């Protein structure tokens, strides 16, 4: 017992010295530390990534959707629509859901754009042709050519909550800026039906010409449409529900997008399938005229159909159903800056924000 005491004492001394030493070091460190200063809070605002933009192309004969990076123009993937004859596309405002009509199946495919897969198929009607989302994105309106009606699809439950009888062979849908009216072009009737979205009834029928097809809301708050069976396009003013302008652009005009040319614009860019051109128009309905006719043949492109502008209005994406590719056109210089192979018979192109 007595032998252990000196050892314990020695250990205790070492421990005390160690503690004193550590305390001293801590004291020294405290003295050498620079005075604390108030730091500004870190920046939490994030700059949206440009690379988030995506291009989606509906390939009718491949039954698929090609996904392309909007910045690098490289292909991200191909989504099987799990249906037949994928024709038209509508993208939700948040970019997470893509709705695709499938002509041959008569069904709407719902695509999860994050997972890049079809997550639902909804039977709408025979020869479902185009799909447009209501302005609040709660419903997808689908035009069924074979049934002369519009299916109203709930974009959350995917239930069809009603159908609206319209003209014969509906092929185009666009909504007014306030969402109070829908415009539905009908091939068989050579007309555009104006639908009151509250009563869900046709309140007026506007005669146009042969085979009216695509409809889109323009930056002038008017509805622009193509007569694919003729050579012209037309403009409808929702204020009067009348056709206020028309102009010949060439054989078989297909779709319309709006973009700027440097400081000038916006201009209407129309794919004219029969002449293999993109025709550029002024958008003033009182002085609507052709400004340019851009031949796309030299760029290995045939039969342009789908066209969409990037949100900035500086690039146009043109889907060519005859050459199975997508052209990226710089609207400022009319220079083709990329040609991207896609699936067979690309019909429609949409771009996320």
């Amino acid at each position, binding site marked *: 017992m007595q032998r252990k005491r000196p050892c314990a004492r020695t250990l205790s001394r070492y421990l005390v010295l160690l503690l004193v030493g550590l305390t001293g070091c801590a004291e020294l460190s405290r003295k050498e530390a620079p005075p604390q200063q108030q730091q500004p809070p870190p920046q939490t605002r994030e700059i949206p990534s440009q690379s988030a933009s995506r291009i989606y192309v509906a390939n009718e004969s491949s039954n698929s959707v090609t996904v392309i990076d909007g910045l690098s123009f490289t292909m991200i993937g191909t989504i099987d629509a*799990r249906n037949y004859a994928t024709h038209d596309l509508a993208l939700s405002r948040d970019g997470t859901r893509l709705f695709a009509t499938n002509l041959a199946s008569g069904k709407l495919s719902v695509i999860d754009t994050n997972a890049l*897969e*079809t*997550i*639902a*198929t*909804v*039977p709408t009607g025979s020869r479902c042709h185009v799909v447009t989302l209501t302005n609040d994105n709660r*419903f997808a309106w689908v035009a069924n050519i074979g049934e002369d009606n519009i299916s*109203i699809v*709930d974009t959350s439950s*995917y*239930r*069809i*909550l*009603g*159908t609206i*009888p319209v003209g014969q062979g509906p092929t185009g849908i666009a909504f007014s800026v306030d969402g109070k009216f829908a415009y539905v072009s009908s091939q068989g009737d050579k007309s555009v039906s104006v639908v009151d979205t*509250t*009563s*869900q*009834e046709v309140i007026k029928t506007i005669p146009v010409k042969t085979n009216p097809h695509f409809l889109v809301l323009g930056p002038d708050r008017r509805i622009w449409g193509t007569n694919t069976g003729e050579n012209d396009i037309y403009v409808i003013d929702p204020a009067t529900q009348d056709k206020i302008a028309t102009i010949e652009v060439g054989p078989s005009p297909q779709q319309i997008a709006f973009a700027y040319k440097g400081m000038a614009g916006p201009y209407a860019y129309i794919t004219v399938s029969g002449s293999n051109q993109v025709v550029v128009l002024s958008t003033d309905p009182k002085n609507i005229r052709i400004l340019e006719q851009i031949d796309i043949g030299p760029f290995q492109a045939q039969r342009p159909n789908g066209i969409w502008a990037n949100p900035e209005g500086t690039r146009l994406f043109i889907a060519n159903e005859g050459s199975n590719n997508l052209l990226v056109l710089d609207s400022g210089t009319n220079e083709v800056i990329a040609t991207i192979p896609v699936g067979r018979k690309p019909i429609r192109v949409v771009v996320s924000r």
Partner: protein
Amino acid sequence: MRANRSIRAFCQQRQPGTARLRLSLSVGLLLLGSLTPLFAQNALLGTAQTAIGTLVVIRPDRIEDRLQGKGAIQLYEGDVLQTEAGSQALIEIKEGIEVALNENTTLKLFYRWEKANGVTQILRLKQGEIWVKTGPGPKQLEVETPVATAAVRETEFNMKVQDDGETTLTVMQGTVEFGTAFGTCPIRTATISYGVRGKRCTKPEPVDVQPTRAWLQGLGK
């Protein structure tokens, strides 16, 4: 069964050491196959069993099959079922759901597939009147009319569509989620609601369901 036996025999004969792994892979693939949605264009959805008068089944290729009296006509997606004046019919669709068609009724069969929820059977009632009774347990069934949709789990109900699309829903037992583009109303036992174009379905009102059943007597329901 024969396929399973073949797989087992193959595993035992060729590579006993990896037999279990191969069997697991095979079973896994079979299970995966069973979870794959019904994308085939000729998915069997039910059977037409009884017709008073004539039930006409119009196939997507426009071929017409007719049922008179008892029978078992298989029904596929896209088939249109029609009864004329004086005709009624009884069909059974998957999961033991009974559907009766009154005279002058046109009904089309579909299904909706969702990755998250599987397959929902859809009856698109274009005109006329149907009665639906689901068996025990929750079901995924919807009845669409021109102005409204009824989503069903475990119920018995009657739906009638007028020429303008106005839809009358009478629930005999259970709850039906009755919706238009303007809102959804839960309709419960012994109540009635109406769906009209451009409006929300009406507030449910109590109703004696026996008169609604009257047309079903000929079909033994």
